[in-house]
């Protein structure tokens, strides 16, 4: 996973509330075999709306998405996080997120920043024409106009994101503990410790 400490650049001023994962990536994109390419299916229905922010060249490749309350609700599909990443989004700012979505985002190295609605309103304004700057280290979101919003983040998640540590990598770092469990199990539960077809 890519370490993430600072995300700066254009921010897509989406702002919509209760965006469920079916809106982020519709179900018919789930029969894929790779995480890549899902960006094409991202916000498929929204992209058909006239004047939408996703087909507007202004925000093509923007690393930040600004959204409304309860972002990522609905089905638990991890494809939602993959689709955002594939679009180039590595940070989503919203008043709140569904638990499952923020977990999936975190697992995939996407920073979710929760800020009060007033801050979101201000960022929506700024984002129309100016860049936004998100700094994980200091937990702040700033604009070129001296706006400064601070956000909370779980210390463990912050540490993982800053260092590009994913859950798999973290558990792999406990390889010794797993190895000693396996050694113990080989004696105590030999019938579980192996799965072979006897000749």
């Amino acid at each position, binding site marked *: 996973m890519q370490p993430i400490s600072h995300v700066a650049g254009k921010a897509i001023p989406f702002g919509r509330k209760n965006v469920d994962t079916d809106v982020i990536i519709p179900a018919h994109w789930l*029969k*894929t*075999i*790779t*995480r890549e390419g899902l960006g094409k299916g991202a916000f498929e229905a929204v992209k058909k709306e006239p004047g939408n922010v996703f087909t507007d060249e202004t925000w093509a490749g923007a690393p930040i998405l600004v959204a409304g309350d309860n972002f990522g609700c609905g089905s*638990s599909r*991890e494809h939602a996080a*993959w689709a955002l990443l594939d679009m180039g989004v590595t940070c989503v700012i919203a008043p709140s997120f569904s638990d499952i979505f923020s977990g*999936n985002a975190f*697992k*995939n190295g996407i920073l979710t920043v929760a800020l009060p609605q007033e801050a979101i309103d201000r960022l929506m304004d700024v984002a129309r024409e100016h860049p936004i700057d998100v700094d994980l280290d200091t937990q702040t979101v700033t604009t070129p106009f001296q706006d400064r919003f601070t956000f909370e983040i779980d210390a463990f998640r912050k540490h993982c994101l800053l260092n590009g540590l994913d*859950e*798999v*990598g973290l*558990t*792999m770092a*406990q*390889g010794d*503990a*797993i190895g000693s*469990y*396996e050694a113990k*199990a080989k004696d*105590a*539960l*030999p*019938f*579980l*410790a*192996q*799965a*072979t*077809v*006897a000749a």
Partner: protein
Amino acid sequence: MTTAPRTLYQKIWDAHVVDTRDDGTCLIYIDRHIVHEVTSPQAFESLRAAGRPVRRPDLTLAVPDHNLPTTARRDSAGNRIPIADPQSAQQLEALERNAPAFGIRYIGDADPEQGIVHVIGPEQGFSLPGATIVCGDSHTACNGGLGALAFGIGTSEVEHVLATQTLLLKQSKTFEVRVEGTLGAGVTPKDVILHVIGVIGTAGGTGYVIEYTGNVFREMSVEGRLTVSNMSIEAGARAGLVAPDETTFEYVKGRPYAPKGEDWDKAVAWWKSLATDEGATYDKSVFIRAEDIQPTVTWGTSPEDTSGIGGVVPAPEDFADASKRDAVKHSLEYMGLTPGTRLTDVEVQNIFIGSCTNSRIEDIRAAAEVLKGRRKAGNVKWAIVVPGSGLVKAQAEAEGLDKIIMDAGLEWREPGCSACLAMNPDKVPAGERCASTSNRNFTGRQGPGSRTHLMSPAMAAAAAVTGKLTDVRDLAPVI
């Protein structure tokens, strides 16, 4: 050292703790991992990108099942008959590539052992009592019928298990579902679990692991216990358990992956020690009388919408809870049912006998017993029997059951998930009903607009014969 009395669940959990974190989360060792074509491609992709190997390919088994058509897979020259849906074909090819590339044993789409993940695990002796078992499909709970702690996982957890053979988990609470008494004639394990879900509701088990206790489960075959534990998910629980006993040992013994010789003796001794201790407490318990259970069917779009076959379609007003009333209203609209209609007056156009809930040899036998000497009703357009594995298929054919089934006018198919979920060509047309032995009656589960009635294999076979939901006990004897 004396330990406090523990439940079966706690004993299996304790035996698998690798590490405990400050917040109580545990790193749990996984003994067996089964991988299929739908939830694994991105997990392998990540491993590849990070240059990570599979930690224990020897504890992992891969098999395709969800997407495969259940029609012939090879032509007479032995060449693969292409899968029409390009994405399904791609997922199958990905698994065929990934399994050998990561050193994982692979059962191919036309191998004699191929079948539904949760059917072949126990059948091969790969799933064992007391083991922790995971697979990227929520009905992994099925394996709990052996007394294994088994549950479904998502794609990133599949990756986690492939790379580390562990999962980060918090302990669940325990829920005892005790069923005692004598089951009536025609009442099968499927009826027992449908009735249980009707009683406790689909949220009844949320946050819990269910242990099924009482003489009814003790006297049940392993096949039946697998059917029951399979639907623990529909009761809201992540996993179900039936304590391993002599019936279980008898079932496991001699299977390809089952322990042999000295290991076998050790295994049996440990398995015997797993039963819940006298004096151990469950966080919650429910008691159900076996005599209260009738052959059961569902009428709605939630697995808790159950009724004995003698009942009628309920009205929304029959329910006290306002949100349930609303749900029932929608569900009846979707199902095209009028309150007060006798269930036995509801016509069905499709029959599906299969899925990891009911596709083992006992299920095929039960269906064949009803179908023997009878014919499918004229209004039934599509009726398929899909064995859970190639070995079930071969066994059924050796017993002549395929013949009985085809003589009755039903189709006999190749093993796979089939019409359990609308991911392969086997689908129920919009607006039509299906008497189905699968596990979910959700909106659109068997195809967009499909109307599912869940029931046992014998009841589905009876519906095939009469063209309506039918009490199997009322069928006139064949002369």
